[in-house]
């Protein structure tokens, strides 16, 4: 069935490719079908990742998703590095999720989550490139009747001896594909890398700039209908009754379909569906949670801090209680971080057709395999009967990974309209009010200092909903959700007595992975509290951390590099103050220094934000710069304004007028200190956010003497100038 589709859309696609090539210089990704480039005549698959055409075009497959993090360019760079191909002739296309099912996961994990595309796939991607290269060399050597050891590959050519004969990859691809792949390939020494570490232009940008990038929302199929939905405003509530008589016979309205938890209007365009939905009378059964409020939730979390039972220990070094009791100085504090919505600019949506026991899905997804599995389950068909067509994502930030609620809805609607493709799209209001929010978290901290001010005891208890237990519904190891205690359980500082506890407090408010997850909130808590300790000890906050990180060279290295670039300790103009923070996240080491002033109206003027990152190897440096710049906008938005509050069991905010986004005029000057120390592969999509909030809040403390212990800053009368 996927083939039938392929034929139907071929003409439009060809035209699109041709136009892009004319204007965009051949860098075309766009709205292609899975495997379309590799299906062209003569294209030869060397292995799952590498396809070579007789005209020497190199097609490198990409399995995860592209949502702006740049991995669609940097992951294929790893293949190309070892393949020794001409990067200018490389075309990148998505691997098919359906083929991944049929070929026993030849492309492995397809999820673009947890900043792990590079760090978790780097080895098999480089090996795939190296294996293909060795096969191409072997095929050329056979043709020449010489030993493969006398041949080498470079820039898409195989050469025999110095200045000798040469053959292009395209000429030997056919023969190479028939050879046994070598079992053991040697990967290049990093010092010999030609592509990794160079700033390579992102492959998807020209299409975006031409308005030709295709997102889930842009899918257009012949005979397609459109659906708008309304979900029970109270999370977990159900449909009680529905009266659609007012919209029956209205222009363009095809069907109103009740489901267990939502109502869908199907129409001949989306606007008509959305407008009609307002006139469908719906009664909801809110269930048991219709009275839940932010205040009642806070009480519940507070109970998690105070309880003597039902608490898990995430880390225990030495004896905290004894060390704290005998400490020269004791510091205690409580910190709070709120629920946050993802607010991907492209609202959730899913287009699907269910026909003849098969399902085709087009959706902006961070996890095509999960989309496929959810579609199969809802349609009641085997996995092999589903294809998830890959598109660019209009933002992901974790929303489009694990939950897949939008796929289940889209396929359910398509099933109710069997044989007809239906594009379901959420309004912004649905998107804001039916998110899987970044969990709210209440944290109690205690520390004991020795007479010199050094910490001898550190305690944290986190009271928060577990994402792991409530979204993927996996059992917690020893009762601890690692995201809930992130950056606390792995505290790298030299403190002899540490106890970290987790009180799991699950509520009816759905929570999920939000860009940087636990590291989006706990570093604010940890590094602000560390500042409190430095302040209590009368020590410089940079020097205080430095002393505690002497045995954590990577944390220390990025702290020092960032402080140096920021000119820590250098004089500042009157009224300007600095704050510093440091944390590891997703395998990368980060630090931040904020330089700011606060005026009497509470306007925070950030003059300079210096962000350091050591990702080990920096695959595409300019893209890392972009991710760091973007992280500062994402985190500043969250820390100044971000807050979902709950009233009568539902989210109070609904759109950008009350869930505020940062604008260009508020963008501070950001400097990135990219300090790759080599030897490891860290993430880059998420770590950049981790150190920002504490650095800014510590600078606010330096400027005002006020310690901020809860976010967002708007609740403290502070705003971004």
């Amino acid at each position: 069935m996927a083939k039938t589709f392929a034929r139907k859309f071929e003409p439009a696609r060809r035209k699109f490719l041709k136009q892009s090539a004319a204007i965009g210089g051949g860098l075309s990704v766009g709205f292609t079908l899975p495997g379309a480039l590799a299906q062209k005549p003569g294209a030869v698959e060397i292995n799952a990742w590498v396809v070579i055409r007789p005209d020497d075009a190199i097609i490198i497959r990409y399995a995860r998703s592209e949502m702006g993090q740049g991995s669609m360019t940097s992951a294929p760079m790893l293949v190309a590095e070892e393949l020794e191909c001409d990067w200018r002739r490389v075309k990148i296309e998505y691997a098919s999720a359906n083929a991944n099912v049929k070929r026993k996961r030849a492309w492995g994990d397809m999820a673009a989550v947890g900043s792990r595309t590079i760090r978790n796939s780097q080895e098999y991607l480089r090996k795939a490139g190296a294996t293909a290269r060795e096969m191409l060399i072997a095929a050329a050597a056979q043709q020449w009747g010489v030993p493969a050891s006398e041949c080498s590959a470079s820039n898409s050519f195989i050469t025999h001896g110095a200045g000798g004969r040469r053959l292009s990859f395209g000429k030997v691809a056919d023969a190479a594909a028939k050879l046994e792949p070598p079992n053991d390939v040697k990967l290049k020494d990093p010092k010999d890398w030609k592509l990794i570490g160079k700033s390579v232009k992102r492959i998807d940008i020209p299409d975006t700039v031409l308005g030709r990038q295709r997102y889930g929302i842009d899918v257009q199929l012949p005979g397609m209908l459109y659906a708008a939905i309304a979900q029970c405003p109270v999370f977990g509530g159900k449909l009680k009754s529905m009266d659609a008589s007012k919209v029956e016979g209205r222009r363009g309205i095809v069907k109103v379909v009740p489901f267990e938890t939502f109502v869908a209007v199907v129409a001949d365009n989306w606007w008509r569906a959305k407008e009609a939905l307002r006139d469908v009378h719906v009664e909801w059964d809110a269930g048991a949670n219709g009275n839940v409020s932010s205040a009642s939730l806070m009480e519940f979390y507070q109970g998690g801090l105070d309880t003597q039972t039902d608490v898990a220990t995430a880390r225990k070094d030495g004896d905290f209680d004894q060390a704290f009791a005998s400490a020269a100085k004791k510091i205690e504090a409580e910190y709070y971080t709120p629920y946050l919505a993802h607010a991907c600019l492209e609202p959730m949506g899913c287009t699907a057709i269910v026909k003849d026991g098969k399902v085709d899905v087009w959706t902006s997804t961070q996890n095509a395999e999960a989309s496929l599995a959810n579609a199969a389950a809802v349609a009641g068909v085997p996995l092999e009967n589903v294809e998830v067509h890959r598109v660019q994502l209009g933002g992901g930030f974790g929303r489009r990974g694990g939950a897949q609620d939008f796929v289940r809805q889209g396929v359910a609607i398509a099933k109710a309209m069997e044989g007809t493709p239906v594009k379901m799209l959420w309004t912004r209001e649905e998107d804001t009010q039916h998110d899987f929010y970044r969990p709210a978290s209440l944290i109690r901290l205690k520390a004991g200092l020795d007479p010199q001010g050094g910490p001898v005891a550190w305690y944290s208890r986190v009271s928060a909903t577990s994402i792991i237990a409530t979204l993927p519904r996996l059992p917690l190891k020893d009762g601890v959700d690692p995201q809930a205690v992130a950056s606390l359980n792995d505290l790298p500082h030299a403190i002899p007595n540490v106890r970290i506890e987790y009180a799991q407090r699950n509520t009816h408010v759905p929570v999920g992975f939000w860009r940087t997850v636990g590291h989006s909130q706990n570093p604010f808590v940890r590094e602000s509290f560390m500042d409190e300790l430095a302040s209590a000890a009368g020590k410089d906050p940079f020097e205080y951390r430095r002393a505690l990180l002497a045995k954590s060279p990577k944390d220390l290295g990025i702290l020092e590099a960032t402080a140096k670039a920021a000119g820590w300790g250098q004089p500042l103009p009157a009224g300007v103050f600095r704050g510093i923070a440091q944390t590891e996240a997703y395998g990368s080491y980060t630090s931040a220094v904020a330089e700011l002033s606060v005026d009497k109206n509470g306007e925070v003027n950030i003059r300079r934000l210096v962000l350091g990152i050591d990702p080990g190897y920096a695959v595409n440096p300019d893209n890392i710069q972009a991710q760091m710049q973007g992280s500062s906008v994402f985190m500043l938005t969250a820390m100044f304004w971000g807050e979902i509050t709950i009233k009568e069991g539902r989210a109070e905010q609904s759109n950008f007028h009350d869930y505020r986004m940062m604008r260009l005029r508020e963008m501070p000057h950001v400097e990135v200190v990219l300090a790759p120390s080599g030897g490891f592969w860290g993430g880059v999509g998420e770590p950049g956010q981790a150190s920002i909030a504490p650095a800014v809040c510590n600078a606010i403390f330096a400027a005002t003497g006020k310690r901020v212990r809860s976010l967002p800053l708007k609740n403290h009368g502070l705003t971004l100038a």
Partner: protein
Amino acid sequence: MIELTVNGRKHSVDVEPEMPLLWVLRDVLDVKGPKFGCGIAQCGACTVHLNGEPVRSCSVPVSAAASQRVLTIEGLAQRGQLHPVQKAWIDHEVPQCGYCQSGQIMAAVALLAKNRDPSDPDIDAAMTNICRCGTYARIRTAIHAAAKTLKSTKA
């Protein structure tokens, strides 16, 4: 029937006069460059030009565009030549996910049409579109670069 000219092509559409221009473009005319983000003129992802003026097409009824000229991102490149703003966007690798960028580019083009050499405060005032990925720093750099290009080609 409502007549409108989109990217130089005349169309007549049989829709309700209050249907937003955005949805006429996207669902009736298959012009997918302008994006839907909020529906309340907050985010600007739907920005197009109406007679040269940037408008948030999610909040403009199609009747208000009747017999007028609509320009979308698809109509910006002329005869295979990128608009200097598009070129600057590519040179400076502005987009991340890219979803807001057709709106950002249309807003920037409108700014430069009126103001050949915008200062930073001019850019602050004109560029109010939301970018969730946070490409603001590069948007600013690219606008200055495009202004330079425009200046040199007009001189």
